[in-house]
Every structure is written in C-alpha cells, then in structure tokens.
C-alpha cells in the first residue's frame, strides 16, 4: 500500500476519502481553492495545499495545479473522487506519466467508456442491449434533427462527454429541438469543455437501476448488486436505494452478470458503475445499458450499508495492486438502505441553488443513520461549487424501517442560513407512491407541485413563537449562534 495519497476533490467526498486514509494509516493530502481555505476537508487532512483561486477551472479542474501539489508533497497516489477530474482520461494519463498511481481505471478505458459511442460498442461486444441513439458526427442542428427523426420523438439530447444530468434535455417534438440543442450545448461546454451532443430514444416511465462492480488487476471481478436511482429531478438523482423494489433475484443476477461482462470486456479495473434503464418489473423486465461511470459514485454508501463492503477501501487496495478479498458467492445484500441528497436549493423556486452561511448546522445522530458531509456550522455554501450539503443514508432491516429512519433523521436535521430541500425530501419519502416502491424517473417531476406544496407552507404559530423568543445574532454572516441571553429569551407563552 502507498503511504501518501492526494485527494483531488473537495466537500463530502474529500472528507470520505480522508477518513478511509485514516483507517488504513495512509497520509492524506488535501487540495483547496481560495474559496475553501476554511473548509473541513482542508482541516481534516494530514497536509493541505492551496491549488488556486475559487473558480474550479483554475483550481480543482487544473491538472497542472493538482500534479504540482502531488509533487510538492511527495504523494504516491491520487484519488479523484467524483466530478471535477474524475472521468478525465488526460488527467489520469498525466498522473501515471508523472509516476503516480491513479485510483481508478486505466486512462484508455476511461476514454473509451467516457465516449457514449465507444461505450455502446463495448456493450454490443459484451452482448448487452442498448437504448437506440447516436452522437451525430456532423453536429449541426440539421444533422442532429436528422439523427433524431429515425429514433423517434420524444428524444433525449445530452452532452456526449458529460454526466449528472447536466445539459440533458428531453425534447418532445422537432419544433423544440433547436432551443434544446442550443441550451444543451452551452451547458455542455460550460460544464465539460466539450459541446458534442448525443441523441437517444426516451423510454417511457423507465427506472434507472445501476450495478456497482469491482475488478482488480488479478482477473477477479464481482458485482456489489444494484442501486435504484429512479428518483431524479431534471435527470439529477436525489434519492437512491438498495435493493431496488423492481428486481427479482433472477433479474438481479442477470444484470449483475451483464455489468461484470461489460466491465471485463472494457478491460476495466477498480470500482465502477454500470447504469441501466429498466422497462417493466419482475422477471419480464428489460434492461438497456445506458453508460458506465468510471469512478466512485455519489450514492456508493447505499451499497456499502447493504453489503458491508467499504468501496473506498477496496478502491485503494485495488490501486495498490492487491487482489479483491472476496468472491461473488461471498457477497450478499442485507437489509435496505436509502440515501437522500441534502442540497442548498429552494424547491419553491424550481430548485434554485442557494448560497450562504451555515448559521446553524447539526447532523442527526441516531441508530442506522450515516451522514456524509463536508461542511460545518459557521461555514458557508459557496456559489462556486455544487450545492450538495450532505448525504444522509438510513439503513433498516426492511425498506419501510429504513424509510422511517430517514424521515425521522431529516426531521431532526436543522440547517439554518440557507434554504435546503429537507422538507421536500420528507414529502418525497412520505409520498404513497414512494412508500409502495412504485417509482420511475419521471415521478419527482410529475409529483413536484404536490411535493413542493406540502413542504412550503407559511410558518405555523409555534415557528413564529420560536422566532420571537430566539436569541438573535448580528447580521454579519459567519458568526455562530451565541448563548448570551437577551430579553427575548425571557419571553414565555407568546401569543402567536
């Protein structure tokens, strides 16, 4: 095992990886931008290096700055986390060229799976069905329209280089195509520096089910079962769970084997995720290969909680050349895990991202609850990065028990100073369709109005009473709440 690891990321995932380093006795090196000089990931690591100004393009996305930091600190390996440079094959190649271990798959595998065309060829070679679609070689509006017509509307336009739902547009008819292409391309360029667009058939009411795989450098390959990620808004996941309510054990095994076959065919190594669209439920359901994410996923904890496997530790072991310690037969799912993504955003304003100070921030602590976060009270949600505050993962021996735990924990998760989606998430977890497990990727957008309404009422009398009785703080941003009594704290029985 290497002795020093640089984490080329920030926020909750940087903190997650630093914790894994602690456990293994590896020295962790954090990198941070000027906007993160007081961020928890900087403070928690054994060493920290400033890599540039706030904009990600000049800090967390700068190969040069990250490699310089690795060199300065004598790091032997780099973990890219997710987002930023995680799926950038040029970066992975530069790490290796610089004599560093890249914690992830080989650069050429990232490149081939990162291209949706090449990835589909891999799937075809592995004998796995794909959703009809293509990246037109001529990227003009007319050529994209020509490509969309035989696929048949509605179609989905998405960045060829991207992920995470950024720049992805559902297009119902040909008339709306030009606007979708223009906006999709701008967002693709802004997020990935590449405006190439991909067009594919939109499958009606599909589920998004993905399979976690792990492959080592000794020919061992296993799947860690599925994650159900159908709860998305505008193609971005907000609730993930394992196992999926749609899978029978036969289908689960078939999808797991397909995922391993695809990864093996691609020459994959380390942890990866094969995403499928699922049409229907039960043994008759059909699954289509969507894409393979060549990195650690945001939602990896639901797999960790149900399989008992620490995926980050496994990544580090594989990167260090060790064999996987278990065979497929030794792996199983136990109980049920649900992850919710807590975002700084305002559901009442169409999920508009929110930036601001965390005046008060207290994570719930109760049985079966895990919170992965990268923020602290007194810190700030910055305008420069993704508005994810934390991931809350609830485990239970049944799905219903996990669900109730998640709701109870969210009701006890005060975050003050920025608006969050906590009330929205509670409404989502309490929705009859979620309770029954009947979800698809259109569910959140379809039920949006109901979910927002039940989470955005005027304050009840008790909230107003508390506001009146509360000890105020100066309106200067980062100061933490104080315990100094003021006349308001003496108030009792205010009539609201």
């Amino acid at each position, binding site marked *: 095992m290497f002795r020093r690891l640089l984490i080329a990321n920030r926020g909750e995932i940087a903190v997650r990886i630093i914790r894994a380093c602690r456990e293994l006795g590896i020295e962790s090196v954090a990198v941070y931008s000027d906007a993160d000089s007081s961020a928890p990931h900087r403070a928690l690591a054994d060493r920290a290096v400033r890599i540039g100004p706030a904009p990600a393009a000049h800090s967390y996305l700068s190969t040069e700055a990250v490699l310089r930091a690795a060199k300065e600190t004598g790091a032997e390996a780099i973990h890219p986390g997710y987002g930023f440079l995680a799926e950038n094959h040029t970066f992975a190649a530069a790490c290796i060229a610089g004599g560093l271990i890249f914690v992830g798959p080989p650069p050429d595998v990232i490149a081939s799976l990162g291209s949706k065309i090449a990835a589909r060829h891999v799937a075809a070679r592995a004998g796995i069905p794909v959703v009809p679609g293509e990246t037109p070689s001529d990227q003009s509006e007319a050529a994209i329209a020509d490509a969309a017509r035989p696929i048949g509307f509605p179609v989905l336009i998405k960045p060829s280089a991207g992920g995470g739902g950024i720049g992805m547009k559902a297009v119902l008819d040909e008339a709306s195509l030009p606007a979708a292409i223009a906006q999709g391309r701008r967002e693709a360029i802004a997020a990935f520096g590449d405006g190439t667009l991909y067009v594919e058939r939109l499958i009606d009411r599909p589920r998004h089910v993905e399979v976690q795989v792990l492959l080592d450098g000794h020919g061992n390959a296993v799947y860690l079962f599925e994650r159900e990620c159908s709860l998305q808004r505008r193609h971005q996941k907000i609730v993930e769970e394992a196992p999926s309510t749609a899978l029978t054990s036969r289908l689960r095994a078939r999808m797991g084997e397909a995922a391993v076959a695809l990864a093996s065919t691609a020459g994959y190594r380390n942890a990866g995720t094969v995403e499928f669209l699922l049409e229907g439920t039960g043994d008759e359901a059909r699954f289509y290969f969507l894409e393979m994410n060549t990195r650690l996923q945001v939602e990896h904890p639901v797999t960790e909680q149900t399989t008992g496997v620490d995926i980050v530790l496994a990544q580090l072991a594989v990167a260090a050349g060790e064999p996987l310690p278990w065979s497929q037969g030794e792996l199983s799912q136990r109980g049920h895990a649900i992850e919710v993504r807590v975002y700084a955003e305002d559901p009442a304003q169409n999920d508009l991202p929110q930036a601001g100070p965390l005046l008060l921030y207290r994570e719930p602590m109760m049985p079966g609850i895990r919170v992965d976060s990268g923020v602290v009270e007194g810190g700030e949600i910055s305008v420069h990065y993704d508005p994810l505050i934390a991931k809350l993962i609830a485990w239970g021996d049944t799905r219903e028990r996990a669900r109730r735990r998640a709701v109870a924990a969210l009701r006890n998760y005060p975050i003050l*100073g920025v608006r969050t989606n*906590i009330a929205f998430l509670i409404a989502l977890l309490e929705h009859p369709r979620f309770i029954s497990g009947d979800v698809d990727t259109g569910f959140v957008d379809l039920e949006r109005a109901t979910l927002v309404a039940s989470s955005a009422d005027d304050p009840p009398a008790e909230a107003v009473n*508390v506001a009146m009785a509360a000890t105020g703080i100066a309106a200067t941003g980062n100061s933490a709440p104080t315990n100094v009594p003021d006349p308001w704290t003496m108030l009792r029985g205010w009539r609201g």
Partner: protein
Amino acid sequence: MVDFDVTPLGNGRYQVSDGTQQRLAYATGPSASRWVFIDGRTFVVDVTGGTDSKVRRTRDDDMGLASPMPATVASVHVSEGQPVSRGDLLVMLEAMKMELPIKAPRDGRVRKVACAQGELVQPGVPLVELD
C-alpha cells in the same frame, strides 16, 4: 390560537410546548430574517415588528428582476427601449453549473439594462428595469 411556551436550551435550541406535547426547535439569525427549524421544516421570519411579525418568503415576483443568488451573467437578450412580452428571456445567468433564465414577469418596455455579459452579479440588485 394555541399558546406555546418557548424555553431556550442554549446553543440555538429551543423547547416548544403547547402544555402537553413538547418539541425541539432551532433558531438563529438577525431579527429581520430569523431562521427557525421545527419538525423538518425551515422558516424565515421577520420579527423586527414585534407582534406584527411577518413571514418573509423570497419569491420571483417580489425579487423583481434581480438575481436570486450570486451568479455570472452568461448573456443579455434585450436592449434598452425594447418592448418585451411576459415570459420573454431577458438575461441568462449561470451559477453552480446551471443556467438560470431571468424572464419578463409581464409585458412592458425595457427601461434600463443594468448588467453586462461576464459580470458577476449579487442577489437583490435589479438586472433589468421594465417600464
């Protein structure tokens, strides 16, 4: 309306009781925008007016044509003097990897464009003024 006893527990925590049932709440922030968390819901309450405390909930219509958050102006789609219809795109902002369109809330004419492409804008400052 029900009477609620509010007891400070320190460090932003409060116990709220209606005489039988008690619950935990959290609050902090200045009196003009005091944040309260209770039962998984968050509210911002203006308590500067004492008993006439009002609810302050930022919405598109009372924000006018300002950015709801710090953002970069990606593009400006109107010029001064130009007539616009409700729903027309006025300014496209970009923040946190997302595009945020600022649209005309009503029909009118552009009196002033107060932002330029590439500019970093702060929340609350009008980007476009309509007659």
